[in-house]
């Protein structure tokens, strides 16, 4: 049956699809919350990298005390906007709160990086091996993760940090590296399970079977078909795992583990400010706000990435 020439002119029920990543990017850019989150994340990154320079140049170094100033306030912290140059006020030792919050941002972003690096380094190989080989290997690996999972996170981190506090590793970065790695060590399980799940299910899908049937070699199957599908959820998991890491670090700092003075983790700032909460709530409020903003930004960005990469999962219509 010959088709008529007008077949080419007729409106056809077809939509263009421009490839997985372009489509995802388009969807992401339509999500305003995700864009806000993304901008904040970039901002935090900038502050983390250039913070000390900015505060030294335009404000005050984060560990510089100014007792003469606080003396004018009866030895108490300086309120925000009360003195020029101290935008958010100071603590009881006259240290610029904004500068200290910048330092906290640096700590938090470093936490995010280091923890996720550890998570990826441990989680992906374990998950991939378990998922690809399946069977007994998968079984033993999963039991191993069950054991790690059974351990209450915070306790494990505390014990770990205490055990290795005196070693060279424990002293790196003023003890911070140890804390970060410890947080990573308890956090990799979700990633491993994710990767394992992806590989297990994708291994058996019809399009892999189809690829094999056409004669595509295994290696290409993995690189061209399996990995691109797995990368999406991995990126989402990394982004959504960051708030947990930041929170863990803040909590530890709050009870005195991790950042030591004069470093100013947001958690330790809140701890310091606790006693002044009645008269000088800014000492608690601003670090808390910083934590909230950081957490929200990564959460929005992560949610946006997830919706962008798999719109089927989207709840809203």
């Amino acid at each position, binding site marked *: *049956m*010959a*088709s*008529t020439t*007008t*077949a080419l*002119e*007729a*409106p*056809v*029920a*077809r*939509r263009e699809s421009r490839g997985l990543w372009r489509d995802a990017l388009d969807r992401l850019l339509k999500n305003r919350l995700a864009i806000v989150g993304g901008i904040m994340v970039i901002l935090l990154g900038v502050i983390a990298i250039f913070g000390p320079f900015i505060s030294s140049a335009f404000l005050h170094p984060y560990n510089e005390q100014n007792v003469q100033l606080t003396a004018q306030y009866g030895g108490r912290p300086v309120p925000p906007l009360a003195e020029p140059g101290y935008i958010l006020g100071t603590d009881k030792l006259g240290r610029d709160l904004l500068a200290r919050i910048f330092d906290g941002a640096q700590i938090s972003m470093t936490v995010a990086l280091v923890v996720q690096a550890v998570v990826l380094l441990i989680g992906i190989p374990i998950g991939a091996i378990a998922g690809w080989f399946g069977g007994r290997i998968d079984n033993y690996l999963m039991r191993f993760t069950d054991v790690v999972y059974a351990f209450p996170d915070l306790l494990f981190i505390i014990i770990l940090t205490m055990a290795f506090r005196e070693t060279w590793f424990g002293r790196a970065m003023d003890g911070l590296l140890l804390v970060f790695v410890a947080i990573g060590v308890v956090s990799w399980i979700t990633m491993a399970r994710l990767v394992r799940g992806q590989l297990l299910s994708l291994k058996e899908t019809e399009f892999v079977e189809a690829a094999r049937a056409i004669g595509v070699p295994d290696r290409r199957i993995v690189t061209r078909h399996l990995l691109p599908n797995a990368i999406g959820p991995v990126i989402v998991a990394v982004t959504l795992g960051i708030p947990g890491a930041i929170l863990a670090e803040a909590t530890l700092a709050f009870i005195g583990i991790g950042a030591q003075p004069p470093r100013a983790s947001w958690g330790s700032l809140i701890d310091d400010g606790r006693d002044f909460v009645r008269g000088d709530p800014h000492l608690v409020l601003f670090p808390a706000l910083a934590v909230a903003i950081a957490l929200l930004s990564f959460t929005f960005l992560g949610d946006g990435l997830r919706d962008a990469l798999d719109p089927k999962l989207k709840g809203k*219509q």
Partner: protein
Amino acid sequence: MTELPDDIQVETEEGRRLAEQLQDSRRHARKLLEVKNLSTHFFTADGVVHAVDDVSFELDYGETLGLVGESGCGKSVTALSLTRLVPNPPGRIVGGEIIFDGVNVLKLSNEEMRLLRGKRIGFIFQDPMTSLNPTLTIGYQIAESARIHLGLSRRAADDRAAELLSKVGIPRARERMGDYPHQFSGGMRQRVMIAIALACDPMLLLADEPTTALDVTIQAQILELIRSLSAEFGTAVILITHDLGIAAGMCDRVNVMYAGRIVETGAVDDIFEKPRMPYTWGLMDSLPRLDEKKGERLRTIEGLPPDLINPPNECRFAPRCRYARDICREQEPELTPREEERHFARCHGTEPGGWIQ
């Protein structure tokens, strides 16, 4: 202010019987279902999709009507529109009338519509694996309608459910009332769906591709079940399918749909023996035949269905039609009568005096 059948409102036993009688006598004079100029559109981010465009047809009491067409032609949406189950957003019935048993369905309140569903109109969906609630026993799911619509007690409803279960061919029905859907095979689950749909002895059964997801051997059983039960209870059936063979075996009349419109309608024998629309020919032609020579290519209809977002004012099949002429592209044909009784086709070329014979 609605024309709800009296028997749903009347309280006493006598009154109810009287209303039934009245209903019966009125029924001889009218059709069970009259759909007039039904249009259902979907309002999406990409535009308004005219899924069902100005569709009209009738259905007699006890008749079996086939809605045949390819994926996306609007047959499922038509059925959903009849019970106002079109997902909203983004879909909406934007025009037309649906008169069911003398009642104007589109004018009913939500509550009144709810009373119709299940009780007067039963629905069988395509995928039995997902259409049953996995956390409720099948006995419960069947008895639920009976309890709510017929006012039966728990026990009476369970009895009725067991009866129905056995009637649809589930062995040891009573024992299996307490089982869960995942303990049944696909074919058995579809039988359960049929039991649910028929629980309140509805006047109309809407079967949306009931066998598409099943094995071929099971297909025949399920279809036979639907046929025998509808004959026994006098239930009218609208059978939606893309499979012509199924339509041929089950239906009294057939509507062929394409791109949101009905393009041909008539008695089943007329449609199959004397189709009067090139699309219908194409459908028949594309069926593989036993008497073909091996190695011969299967015949297809070239091209794709049109985009329903802005349907052009031409015959929607024209781009793919080998018989199309200029008039086909300038003006969309109406459904006009053909030789046989109640046989209509939407085609310029096959009209009396046209260029296709």
